């Protein structure tokens, strides 16, 4: 069919997602250009996730034994994909109506693009943790990621919603479990193999974010270890690509220095100089607020973002704690953390 758009398979890994799977599948099927095939990998759920997904209109496959991770579930589904494009979507996420069409167009327009990813914003903003994440995403996707796209190197094709050329996935075999951040590992591997990644601002994915400190801690622990593990795995390879090298370097050093600064230097300065030192926790808030409020304005959410800014400061401290802990475990104790714990 000359001029036809490449067909697309959507893979949705799911483990006990009964509360959200129906919304997710319906969100995919109601797209302006829905995928031709929607496969839900019911990875050993005990809450009826598979049945709900089937009722919502997806094909459901279930391994006889659990794969144990999101990467495992996605890799399990890959051999069933027969379309030129493949997208992955978290089972707790919904998409803006044209999200699939926009990512598909981005891949079609750029023949060198191996993957495309979207803007991400939390679906709910009820708790302090969701609000903190909301600000974090507005900053990251409204500013940092857009500059990465301008320079041709988005840091990660986010695991919650990304689209790939199937031939690239086939070439690398799927999603690796050698790190706890499978999306970062795949993205950096694609770069090292010569592929490109596109960030499409207009496509929006809305996942459910952790709403309790315990759930957020589980997720941040996985992300912190995953980031450090990927830097270790790819440190030689990414040096070959100057812009990617710079982006990873500043992220790594910023993460390390900031975490130590917040947890050790500021408390020491507080003891030495008094309360003035505490300004270190909020000194960069105006600089963060500018891109956050701009991105929020475009979504008509200015007030919500303004009210959420303090929550970001709290989330950042929790994040710093997990980053320092991950650094100590991975670098000092040399004890890689490899247990995949679901934390949304």
């Amino acid at each position, binding site marked *: 069919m000359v001029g036809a758009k490449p067909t697309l398979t959507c893979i949705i890994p799911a483990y006990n997602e009964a509360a959200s799977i129906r919304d997710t599948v319906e969100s995919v099927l109601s797209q302006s250009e829905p995928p031709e095939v929607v496969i839900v990998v019911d990875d050993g759920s005990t809450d009826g996730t598979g049945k709900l997904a089937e009722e919502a209109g997806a094909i459901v496959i279930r391994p006889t034994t659990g794969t144990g991770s999101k990467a495992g579930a996605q890799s*399990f589904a890959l*051999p069933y994909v027969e379309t*030129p494009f493949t997208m992955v979507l978290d089972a707790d996420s919904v998409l803006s109506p044209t999200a699939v069409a926009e990512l598909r167009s981005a891949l079609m327009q750029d023949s060198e693009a191996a993957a495309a990813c979207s803007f991400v914003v939390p679906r709910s903003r009820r708790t302090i943790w969701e609000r903190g994440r909301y600000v*974090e995403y507005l900053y990251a996707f409204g500013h940092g990621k857009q500059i990465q796209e301008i320079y041709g190197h988005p840091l990660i094709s986010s695991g919650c919603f990304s689209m790939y050329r199937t031939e690239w996935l086939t070439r690398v075999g*799927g999603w690796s479990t*050698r790190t706890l951040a499978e999306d970062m590992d795949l993205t950096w591997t694609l770069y090292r193999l010569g592929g490109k990644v596109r960030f499409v601002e207009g496509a929006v994915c809305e996942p459910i974010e952790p709403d309790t400190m315990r759930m957020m801690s589980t997720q941040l622990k996985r992300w912190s270890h995953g980031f450090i593990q990927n830097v270790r795995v790819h440190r030689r390879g990414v040096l070959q690509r100057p812009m990617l090298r*710079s982006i990873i370097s*500043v992220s790594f050093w910023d993460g390390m220095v900031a975490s130590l600064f917040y947890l050790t230097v500021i408390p020491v300065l507080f003891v030495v100089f008094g309360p003035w030192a505490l300004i270190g926790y909020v000194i960069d808030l105006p600089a963060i607020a500018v891109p956050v409020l701009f991105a929020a304005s475009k979504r008509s959410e200015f007030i919500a973002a303004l009210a959420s800014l303090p929550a970001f400061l709290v989330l950042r401290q929790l994040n710093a704690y997990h980053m320092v802990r991950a650094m100590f475990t991975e670098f000092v104790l040399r004890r890689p953390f490899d247990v995949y714990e679901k934390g949304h």
Partner: protein
Amino acid sequence: MGPGVPGMGIASIFYVMAALISPLREVVKSVRGESSAQRWMAVGRQFALAVGIVSSIVLLYLGIDAMVSRGLISPPDVADLPGHYPNWAYAVGILIALLLALVLAAWVVKLRVRWGSMGDDAEMIADAYRASIPVHEDLRQHGISKGRHRAALSQPVISLSVPWHDPAVTNVTTATDHLPMRGRHLLEPVSA
């Protein structure tokens, strides 16, 4: 700073600088015919944001300075710091020292890597990655080893006339072998 990676400004400085010089880069790309109106809009927006971020920092400094000079707040006594330079000089000095340390660290890492083996052959990268992908027992039974093996990726074989979302086709199954026939047609793993 990004999702899951805390920050205190090092990355922000990098992105602000990248945004501020991006118009120059885009001019070069335009001359080469590699730019577009859409790209220029993105560049212009990020440039404006970078100017806004720098302005907010300057305003913050001016605000604190004004409050200190009017005695509304009293900063800690830094008279013991060497040289008796103005506070902003210490701030700029620390920033420059930090950036230089980062550049030096990156340079050392680069040298170390250059002395060692780069090992960045595409097949080696792909092989190393593939080796860490577990193959589920169900797939092994279908003869699937690492990843999938099919040549004709450009020819989608799924027949779109098949109502794949028909509930009759898509009974939930505990193993692919148990799929009904039409479902099997769609869901048989693609092996060599």
